[in-house]
């Protein structure tokens, strides 16, 4: 008898286990690629954190006696023309990759959410103006704008993340505005208003929590794109200023003598690609887990 009687407390915890987060996690786990991607992202973050400490050499340390060495036990990723240990260079690169990609995405995201929420809630002239600005940003080539901004602001970490961030908000604004418009006249908001909720309160407690899923997905898709933008800036010689190593710089330089010293390209480019893929898998998995009705 006692074995099958659930105490009220046990019943509650059983219910709590079926919360939306738990359900989403269960759906997420079903996608093996997404789990692999989550692992990749975790490694990316951990290496970003501890990379500089575990790197065998400092990023400025070079030894001309060992220039252009192929991969060996001593230099697992080989060395470049200045005798830099490529493994150390790669390990050091994680940190600024995280700083710039996360920072830039956050900047775009904050601008986009604020403007999208404002436009969706206010409607009318505000909506018109904000959405025309969005169209304008869409029409401009973002990357070209980033190039100009980096040239004007300089090549520090913060200027670069700002340059990538302030041009990429249009998509977030459009997404949030669309979601808010869909809910603004819905029954949930009507019911909240009928109970005397103020506009600010509705935005904070009703609208934002209900778009978190879509925002998470958008963020997961946004980060790899900002990583690519960062790498592309390096190809134009506008990445983080050397001697600070970055994936873009390494790939850009290795491309010049890929026939002679191919390991200089393979390792950084391969790892960079795995990072990008990891984020895309995670984004895809989130899409399925959080938004089971829509998406692929």
């Amino acid at each position: 008898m006692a074995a099958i009687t659930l105490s009220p407390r046990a019943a509650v915890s059983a219910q709590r286990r079926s919360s939306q987060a738990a359900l989403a996690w269960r759906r997420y786990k079903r996608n093996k690629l997404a789990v692999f991607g989550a692992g990749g992202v975790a490694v990316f973050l951990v290496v970003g954190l501890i990379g500089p400490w575990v790197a065998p050499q400092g990023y400025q340390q070079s030894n001309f006696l060992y220039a252009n060495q192929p991969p060996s036990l001593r230099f697992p990723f080989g060395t470049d023309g200045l005798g830099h240990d490529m493994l150390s260079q790669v390990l050091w690169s994680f940190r600024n990759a995280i700083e710039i990609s996360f920072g830039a995405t956050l900047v775009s995201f904050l601008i986009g959410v604020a403007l999208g929420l404002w436009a969706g809630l206010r409607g009318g002239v505000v909506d018109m103006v904000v959405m025309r600005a969005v169209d304008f940003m869409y029409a401009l080539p973002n990357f070209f704008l980033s190039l100009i901004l980096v040239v004007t602001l300089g090549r520090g970490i913060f200027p670069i993340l700002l340059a990538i961030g302030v041009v990429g908000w249009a998509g977030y604004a459009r997404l949030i505005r669309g979601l808010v418009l869909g809910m603004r006249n819905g029954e949930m908001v009507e019911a909240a208003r009928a109970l005397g909720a103020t506009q600010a309160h509705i935005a904070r407690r009703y609208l934002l929590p209900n778009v978190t899923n879509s925002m998470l997905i958008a963020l997961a898709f946004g980060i790899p794109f900002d990583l690519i933008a960062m790498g592309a800036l390096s190809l134009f010689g506008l990445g983080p200023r050397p001697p600070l190593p970055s994936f873009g710089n390494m790939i850009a330089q290795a491309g010049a003598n890929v026939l002679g010293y191919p390991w200089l390209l393979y390792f950084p480019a391969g790892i960079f690609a795995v990072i990008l893929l990891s984020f895309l898998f995670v984004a895809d998995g989130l899409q399925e887990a959080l938004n089971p009705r829509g998406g692929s």
Partner: protein
Amino acid sequence: MAAEPLLAVEGLRVCFERAGGSIYAVNGVDFSVAPGETLGIVGESGSGKSVSVLSVLGLLRANGRVTGGTAKFMGKDLLKLRRRQLEDVRGRDIGMVFQDPMTSLNPTMRIGDQIMEAMLSHHYTSRKGAFERTLQLLEEVGIPDGRARFRNYPHEFSGGMRQRVMIAMAIACEPQLLIADEPTTALDVTVQVQILALLQKLQQRRRMSIILITHDFGVATNVCDRIIVMYAGKVMESAPLDDFLSRPAHPYTIGLRRSVIEVGDEGRELAAIPGMATVLTEPPRCCPFASRCSFAEDRCSDVLPELRPLGTEHFVACHRAEEVLSAVQARKPVGQEVVSRAG
């Protein structure tokens, strides 16, 4: 109804702007609710029943506009209040329950928090008081094991239970008036009865007034003290329940009654009202029901019938109300006349 009405709406007019021109949704509506009374507002979709009540609370969509009238509530004209003042009234003095509890609750908040919020946003009690009261309310609206259910999200409830949560939110601040807009339409029939019974129980306990908006005569005649029938944004008939049941005097009322089955109606044919409710691109200048009415004569499509008394508290907007009434009382099959004329 000697008592001062709690809410008195007079000459209300509401207009919606849209690309093709204005839609005149409510065209001079009067109604009032006495303290402790249950008023039913009945009509087809698009008859203006919801709009006339929502507009009083300032809950119209962006393209809707109140173009005239007054709505006196506890000495204030709700139509003249600022947005902030109106927000104070909503939820505190006037509670509201909506049709679809599936979509009206916030899926990201625990239901207990949502009920507490209704009180906290009006500074009704302290946080601790609101918690205690929420447990009390959950029990009062018939949700067992409130302490555990407090932590549940809306998706963990059935439709009827969610509607109970909505009701708990609506009455959390002890409003004087509860507006229920089709509160049972989205629910199973058995659950409908429970929800209506709950509303009545809550009303008796606190002498609260209720405005029940419905298209369902069965619902209206079961719980209301007085019923208003609306059509084309105008009041067609207004009567206490007894008069309404025994002496319906408007052809539209009779048409609506004939189109639903009531208990004891076995074997009767269901009669549809011919035609459709018209889209009001201008305010009606003649009887809006004339084109669908079997009693219509020439003056009906010339002169707009005003609401006029037919008994002490019985009002009808029909030129031929007396004839309609006598036809009903002579037990002539009024509804059949409607059908045969139409066919």
